[in-house]
């Protein structure tokens, strides 16, 4: 290849660590997130090994507390929240809108450095001895009683929050101001609508987390009582402020995944997404209503019954736009020319797993049932179906779909499909038994349990072993493909999106000439009725 791509313009380390190219920053994020994913995954593996037997044979209760806290903090803030936005989003957003870069490339690089600073701070807290508060840092345990590195870990999360805010800001401004000529809002691919909604949450919710953690750390460090009931503070205020961020953060952890699924379903059904405008506005509706449901994490906290009723009602409301999306995806499949390429397998897995996660979310939104299920494995299973079954599956789907664009190489379809199917079965085997455990009353966050629960726990741990292998597989076949894979054409899937109009991998500033958009997205039927070529 004589043409210079973004990967071959310069090979020095300096050109990577001081780059302002959104594609290279995406790669930096990608490498960092793999690292954090496997650290968080190692903690999960230790948890599942401990829970294979009813007794405490691997770790003590204190170490167990530190393990699930580490798993939660790393996976939420250092994998799930940045996962799709900062890797795939960073790479694809400017390409999709026909821009040469994000609006603020230096800010984009700064966000990666801030992220790494936060990540290293948190890792320091973990390796210095860990944190035992759970990822939620609930007071008064975190401020008065915990003998662990609470302030350092909270500082890491606090710092990483600024990276989220900068990324959200960059996406909002980019999508508003840098769209190619002719690319109106209703011509945007739905991935961008969902990232836009995600960015609004990042910008508006993250500062509240920052201030909450700051108040918590102040209380712990100075011994003053902001949330301490002994001197008039209100521990519930911490929970309100925390969930005011952390519930919208759940939508940060699913909306980008939904966005990816639109692209995949449409490409591998060779059809435009059914009800485009509904799906687009549903993303914003989820973001908006998502700010009004945080109290459903606090049904048993002692908040007023009226508050619980309102939050319960709003939680049912927020399910409506999510359900609309699921129905529209299935309607997109209807009479489509469906191709079971690896990204499509992930997309179909997403629809199934997200539906289970979403429906069990409605169970939990019922006040009466929630009292029974609070702090049980039912909750654990529910949010893993959304976050792992939903977001991580979508992340892998999107990664495979855009892999030829990112690396300019094709991966092994056989291995990719095998991994996708293994992930699906491993995931269900891990987490479906946890619904049963939770319904039968097994509480979360204990390292021992009555022997009657062992069958389901062994199934779950067995599933986790399959899942671990399945998650390791892409590391090998994608890693091989990145260096030795067959060269990818510019548009291996025959997709109409702007990102496929430039070469694979793209040149440094994405497009040789400024693209102009004249059509709606997803026009598979008109000019692009050819089949995908990558089988």
């Amino acid at each position: 290849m004589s043409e210079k791509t973004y990967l071959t313009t310069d090979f020095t380390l300096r050109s990577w660590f001081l780059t302002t190219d959104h594609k290279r920053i995406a790669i930096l994020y990608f490498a960092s997130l793999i690292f954090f994913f496997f650290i968080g995954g190692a903690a999960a593996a230790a948890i599942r090994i401990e829970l294979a037997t009813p007794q405490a044979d691997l770790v003590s209760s204190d170490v167990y507390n530190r393990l699930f806290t580490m798993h939660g903090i790393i996976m939420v803030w250092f994998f799930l929240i940045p996962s799709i936005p900062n890797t795939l989003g960073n790479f694809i957003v400017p390409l999709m809108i026909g821009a040469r870069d994000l609006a603020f490339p230096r800010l984009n690089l700064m966000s990666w450095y801030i992220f790494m600073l936060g990540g290293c701070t948190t890792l320091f807290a973990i390796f210095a001895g860990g944190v035992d508060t759970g990822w939620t840092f609930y007071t008064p345990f975190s401020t008065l009683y915990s003998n662990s590195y609470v302030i350092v870990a909270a500082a890491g999360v606090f710092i990483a929050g600024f990276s989220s805010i900068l990324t959200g800001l960059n996406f909002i401004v980019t999508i508003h101001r840098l769209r190619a000529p002719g690319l109106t809002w209703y011509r945007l691919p739905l991935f961008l609508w969902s990232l836009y909604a995600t960015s609004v949450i990042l910008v508006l919710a993250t500062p509240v987390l920052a201030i909450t953690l700051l108040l918590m750390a102040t209380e712990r460090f100075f011994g003053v009582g902001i949330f301490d009931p002994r001197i008039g503070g209100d521990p519930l205020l911490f929970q309100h402020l925390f969930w005011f961020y952390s519930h919208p953060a759940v939508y940060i952890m699913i909306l980008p995944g939904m966005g990816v699924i639109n692209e995949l379903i449409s490409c591998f059904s060779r059809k435009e997404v059914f009800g485009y405008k509904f799906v687009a506005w549903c993303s914003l509706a989820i973001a908006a209503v998502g700010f009004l449901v945080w109290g459903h994490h606090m049904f048993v906290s002692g908040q007023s019954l009226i508050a619980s009723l309102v939050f319960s009602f709003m939680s049912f409301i927020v399910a409506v736009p999510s359900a609309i999306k699921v129905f529209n995806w299935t309607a997109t499949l209807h009479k489509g020319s469906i191709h079971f390429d690896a990204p499509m397998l992930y997309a179909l897995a997403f629809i199934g797993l997200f539906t289970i996660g979403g429906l069990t979310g409605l169970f939990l939104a019922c006040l009466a049932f929630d009292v029974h299920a609070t702090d049980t494995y039912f909750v654990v299973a529910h949010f893993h179906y959304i976050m792992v079954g939903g977001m991580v599956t979508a992340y892998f789907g999107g990664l495979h779909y855009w892999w030829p664009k990112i690396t300019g190489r094709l991966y092994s379809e056989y291995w990719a499909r095998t991994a996708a199917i293994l992930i699906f079965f491993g995931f269900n085997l891990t987490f479906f038994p946890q619904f049963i455990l939770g319904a039968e009353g097994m509480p979360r966050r204990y390292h021992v349990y009555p022997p009657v629960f062992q069958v389901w726990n062994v199934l779950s741990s067995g599933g986790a072993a399959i899942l671990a292998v399945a998650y390791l597989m892409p590391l090998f076949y994608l890693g091989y493909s990145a260096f030795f894979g067959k060269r990818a054409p510019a548009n291996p899937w025959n997709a109409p999106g702007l990102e496929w109009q430039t070469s694979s991998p793209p040149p440094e500033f994405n497009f040789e000439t400024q693209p102009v958009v004249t059509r709606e997205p997803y026009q598979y039927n008109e000019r692009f009725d050819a089949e995908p070529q990558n089988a």
Partner: protein
Amino acid sequence: MPESSAFAPQYASIRHRDYTAELGIWVFIATEVLLFGGLILAYFVYRHAFPPGFAAGSRHTEIVIGTANTAVLLTSSFLVAWAVEIFSPATAKIVTWLLIGAACLGLVFIVLKGIEYSKEYDEHLVPGIDFQLAGPKANGVQLFFVLYFVTTAIHALHMLIGICLLLTLAAICRKAPTTRHHTALHSAALYWHFVDVVWIFLFALIYLPGRSTS
């Protein structure tokens, strides 16, 4: 392209770049609103729970310094607005002095705030370090002062960042101001006014409760 050094490749024109930057600073201000919003929410929750404590805490604050600081900050905002209004390469000298004046007023604010803090320290009103107050209102007063110190410290940190921005812009304007710096100045000014507006809210919340009924 002769203008290629004037603006980064992702923009189509200078106007496009400025227009984009302006949206950026507004989104940033949105995130800041929520940052202070969280603190002010905590303030309202506790003021609702401890009305006499908050009134008593407020009466302990130095309203003269607080009022003087409000005047200082509003004046500095006026100077910045003036600088934005008249900015052009021809008026570089006046703009430089206006910005230096605004930054100095910002420093005056910080110094006055420091004097206020030291007075509160002398009166044993700093929770966590030296807080001595007994009686039924002690809890409310302590919560008031915790929130007072956290909020004003974060506000002062924003002030320091703003002062650095204004001084940097003053240094640039002294040397070679171009139209490019108009956007930078405009953005810094928006930030400075935002910090000012936050103070207006803080002033009312910190110094005014309980003054009419002592």
